[in-house]
């Protein structure tokens, strides 16, 4: 497509998607972000203002791409007929599988975008939107799980369950980016294993019983002397 010679009247409507696609095309071809919004806009024959109608910066485009995949995944899995039969563990698994299935079509972009991220404790800007979508979704299914008794409601900790899932998510994402197995089968295994382990921790475990036993002994401490310990 030669863009230089095209005239005003053949100019396409600028939309959120058209900017997203143009941006992906640019970074994947050039290997870096455009030097300025001016250059990017000019190259794609739009006014700078048109760009700012949709996005404040290039990072905002990247953020929107990640967020969109996340919301699309959530919307899609909820329309699946089996959704209603799933418990929270399965709902989480379903999210993970579908997310990476969708992301497959944008793997090059995902690799490009994730590579720029500096490892650290805070969530990178480009993932912030995705994270908040993810957390809303996670809180929802975790709440259901706690209500149904599938998961244990632990004081202070139950609020942190969603963070544990996010950590798991970032882990699998990195795993997937480095996965070279055919059909990303290894990622499937990583998901099955990882999510299940995380949910095991949310469930009632021997630790809970141990803590309760400890509490009981502490409350009935007087017994100790009587028992002759």
């Amino acid at each position, binding site marked *: 497509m030669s863009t230089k010679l095209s005239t005003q009247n053949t100019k396409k409507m600028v939309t959120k998607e058209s900017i997203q696609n143009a941006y992906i095309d640019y970074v994947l071809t050039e290997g870096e972000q455009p030097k300025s919004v001016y250059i990017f806009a000019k190259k794609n024959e739009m006014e700078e203002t048109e760009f700012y109608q949709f996005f404040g910066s290039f990072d905002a485009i990247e953020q929107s791409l990640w967020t969109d995949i996340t919301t699309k995944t959530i919307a899609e899995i909820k329309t*699946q*007929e*089996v959704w209603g*039969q*799933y418990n929270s*563990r*399965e709902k989480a*698994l*379903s999210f*993970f*599988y*579908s997310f990476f*299935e969708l992301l497959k079509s944008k793997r090059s972009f995902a690799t490009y975008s994730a590579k720029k991220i500096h490892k650290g404790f805070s969530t990178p800007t480009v993932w912030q939107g995705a994270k908040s979508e993810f957390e809303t979704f996670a809180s929802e299914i975790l709440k259901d799980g706690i209500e149904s008794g599938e998961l244990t409601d632990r004081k202070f900790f139950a609020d942190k369950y969603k963070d544990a899932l996010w950590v798991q998510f970032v882990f699998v994402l990195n795993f997937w980016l480095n996965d070279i*197995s055919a*059909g990303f*089968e*290894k990622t*499937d*295994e990583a*998901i*099955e*294993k990882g999510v*299940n*382990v995380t949910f*095991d921790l949310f469930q009632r475990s021997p630790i809970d019983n141990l803590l309760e036993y400890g509490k009981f002994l502490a409350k009935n401490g007087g017994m100790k002397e009587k028992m002759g310990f």
Partner: protein
Amino acid sequence: MSEPKEQNSIPTTKVQRSAKFVSTGFKIGGNYIKHYSKKLFNPEMNNDELNQDNAADIYESLSELKGSALKVAQMLSMDKNLLPKAYVDKFSLSQYNAPPLSGPLIVQTFRKLFGKTPEQIYDKFELRSTNAASIGQVHRAELNGKKLAVKIQYPGVGDSISSDLKLVKPFAFRLLGMSERELDVYMNEVEERLVEETDYELEVRRSIEFSEACAGLNNLVFPEYFPELSGKRVITMSWLEGMHLKEFLATNPSQELRNQIGQAMWDFYNFQQHEMRAVHADPHPGNFLITPEGKLGIIDFGCIKEMPDDFYYPFFSTTSTDLLDNKEETIKAFRQLEMIHTNDTPQQVEFYYEQYKEMISLFAQPYMTGSFDFGKNEFFDNLYSFGERLARMPEFKQARGVKHFIYVNRTNFGLYNILHELKAQVKTDTFKPHVVVEY
């Protein structure tokens, strides 16, 4: 909540699997310590409790590993004559239930293979599996009013087979008392079969081929296969209604019915062995169903052992008295089967000739007469005690015999075991071995 617990973690990387086996190793070590410390105080104690402890620990670790390791567990449990009873009892568990995998993973598998979810492909699909098939699991489904069984394979099974087998090896040679080098030939054979078993496309082709070839046999039923709904990791076939062997026996079936099932099984195996020279080599009870009409249903063609002529003729010819009465020719046949090695001394040749002759005439007993009563304990007691006697002989610490023996023995002893459990009286001259009298 009687359904099996869904599996929470599959240790898949080699390190994790190793860790699993290492911990089993420790436990077994512990069992020995426990055993010998008890024995200090009670010299009368026999090995039963020790074996029981070991079997439980090995089983626990194997069933968590799933896949090929589970397959090895199944295989070991088939060879009842090779292993003490306690191992066998525990290992037999693995022939039925292994914990299922999650629903979303199944949906994912379908989407990858067909680009559709199971509910888009079938009219009805049950997300909870009905039972495990050791490297996969089986689900009920329905399409156009037809009841279906859908077998789904776990991801990554193919990849992990060889690393699994390497891990099983130390256990195998501890259990079987062989050296690692000798075990290699056999392990390779096992690996080859297991890799084939993970190829579901091959399995569908073979299932169709074998069920067509065996269609003329009496009282056998095969499911119908749907290649267009099958792929690398999924097989769709029609659902066979029926009971597993244990359930069937619990209904106290009449002698007549047991004979009918036993005969169908005998014909099925011997038709394949002697007419097709390739045999369904996985006769563990989970692969059969007994239908309400009193027919035998065969539901798994994953493991096929082909017998080349240079194995078939010498081996099955020794099951005939015509050959076995001729010592010189028999020794030639044994040499061809590598039961007698070229560098054996004359005394060794004599020794192995005697032992193998006894073994084969035991094994061939059902073939020698026109009909055979597998219900008789005597035959099996003889087999087991002979097996145990061999196991204790230092001469049999080293492995002998060509690699083909593994699956052919497994098939035939498996068959004998099932017929014994059925207490069936069987006409054994329906499909006779083809015999060559001179070597």
